[in-house]
């Protein structure tokens, strides 16, 4: 196990190094960072001074080594927009995103397991058809639209919940539910399908022949067995949320997390902040991947980690 984790950490390091290189190449070679970051009105002297300040006058390999060294120290330079270290901004915004994801994905996980299980008990029954239809609806609604509709109904018309911002638990409700919708639908469909398969397995038949009650069969024999596919799909969903859903939802609800900050940094041409955010997300995705593998191994003894 330790062996496996070390090897995965090394692989993860390679991935992060790859991401770092790509970020470097795109920002240095695919465009002119100076004209991207400075206003149009900047004079040639100002441009040259800025280029020298961020090391653009050096040979490209010196630039890369400096960049890689800085990345290793989590130093991405100062955000031009915030006028403070980019990583500081990331660390300040990250907890907000983490809270939003925990609330949103947590809701999806907690609701999807009973919903999917109930639907699977009688495939084709009323509960099943209802759950399946609503899940399809959930998958069909884009989050930006769902978020705007939620604001219109619950904030503007009913005035139950704040439209945007952060601060109280009430502020969390709409963004978290909007974020939860797509994963909830996907999880429910997945739990339903996996449960139907599980209930038809020979070992569930054995469990029934042993005289075990339905409750025990569900708890002990099937729910645990669907955790392996559930874990891998939720890992995937967590990654999608981190690198996609949060950008949309945070923008719609003005939630000051990493996603909204990334959009603002891009709009302001704040290259260093964008780099810091991309790097942080890549690092988190690598860690999630390792964590999912280890958890799967803990649930299913048949999985060989080598």
């Amino acid at each position, binding site marked *: 196990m330790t062996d496996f984790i070390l090897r995965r950490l090394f692989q993860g390091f390679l991935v992060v190094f790859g991401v770092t290189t790509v970020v470097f190449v795109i920002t240095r070679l695919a465009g002119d960072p100076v004209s991207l970051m400075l206003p149009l009105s900047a004079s040639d002297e100002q441009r040259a001074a800025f280029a020298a300040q961020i090391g653009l006058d050096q040979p490209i390999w010196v630039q890369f080594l400096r960049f890689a060294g800085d990345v290793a120290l989590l130093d991405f330079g100062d955000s031009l927009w915030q006028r403070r270290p980019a990583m500081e901004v990331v660390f300040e915004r990250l907890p907000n995103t983490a809270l939003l994801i925990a609330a949103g994905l947590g809701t999806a996980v907690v609701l999807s397991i009973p919903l999917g299980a109930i639907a699977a008990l009688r495939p084709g029954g009323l509960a099943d058809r209802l759950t399946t239809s609503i899940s399809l609806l959930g998958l069909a609604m884009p989050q930006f639209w769902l978020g705007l509709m939620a604001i219109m109904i619950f904030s503007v018309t009913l005035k139950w919940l704040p439209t945007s911002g952060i601060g109280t638990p009430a502020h969390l409700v709409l963004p978290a539910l909007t974020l939860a919708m797509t994963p909830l639908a996907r999880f429910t469909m997945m739990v339903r399908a996996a449960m139907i398969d599980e209930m038809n397995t020979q*070992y569930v038949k054995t469990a029934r022949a042993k005289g075990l009650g339905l409750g025990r069969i569900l708890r002990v024999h099937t729910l645990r067995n669907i955790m392996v596919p559930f874990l891998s799909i939720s890992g995937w969903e967590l990654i999608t949320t981190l690198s996609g859903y949060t950008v949309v939802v945070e923008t719609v609800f003005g939630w000051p997390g990493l996603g909204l900050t990334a959009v603002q940094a891009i709009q302001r041409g704040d290259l260093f902040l964008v780099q810091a955010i991309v790097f942080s997300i890549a690092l988190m995705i690598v860690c999630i991947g390792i964590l999912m593998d280890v958890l799967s191994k803990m649930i299913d003894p048949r999985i060989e980690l080598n």
Partner: protein
Amino acid sequence: MNDPLLEIDDLRVDFDTRAGLVQAVRGVSLTLGRGETLGLVGESGSGKSVTAQAVMGLIDVPGRIAGGAVRWNGMPLVGEGVRRRPRRIWGREITMIFQNPMTSLNPLMTVGAQLGEVIHLYLGLRGAAARTRAAELLDAVGISGASRRLDQYPHEFSGGMRQRVMIAMAIASEPRLLIADEPTTALDVTIQAQILELLAGLQEKLGLSIILITHDLGIVAGLCHRVAVMYAGQIVETGTVDDIFARPGHPYTQGLIRSTPRLDAVEDRLVSIDGTPPGLRTPPEGCAFRPRCPAAQAACHAPQRLASHGAGHVACCRAGVDAWDVGAA
């Protein structure tokens, strides 16, 4: 014979499939005494497994019990006369092992945990006491190093060993009837013999009744007291093993015995019964075996009944002679 332990009375099981209603079991009647081993033989799709699953209460949608009854010690268990779901019969007094030991155990639970479920449920033991009992059971089915094996997962066991674990679970509650649904079909021949030997030994030691489902007449001859031959969802012949092998009354039984390879006979090729069993969506009116029978007559188109063929031996055929000799003549 004293009061039968298990009575199956005109049992019918239907399956509602997309292609139409399939009558998998069409009026099966059987009795089983205490300590008796009954062989239920027939080819694939003849309804042997469905009959066994019906007795175990394991028929699921799209299947349903369409008629008849199963009684346990005179008490209604399945079908007619059942008021509420009987508890503590299935799993405690009647247990079952299945054809494929590779998939019959939960892959994510240790063998000890799966044995422990039964031990806890029926013997009320927990913790160290349950573990000791589980180890004794593994020992009783011939698994060595039992206390170490308890913590292993099914994938660490071979097929034969997994079937032994299944048997250990099936005898944990000290049942009175064990239904073995083709317990050796998925195993190597040498392992087959060991498993059958184990079953025979356990029967002697525990006074179990066994229903052994198989399509292998050799297994029946070695282990069973009585045989019931199924064809197309019906029982076509029952009798003692000796009687059936000596004087098979139904052409299908005769054909089965004829097509069993023998070590002591010099034959160029294996003998088989030509044709295939009828589909059970529209079961034939008369004898279901008629299209394949060499001795078929016009009277075979009429519905057939089981008729006495000697003491404790019934067959549902009018021919009463060796049809295959007649056919060959």
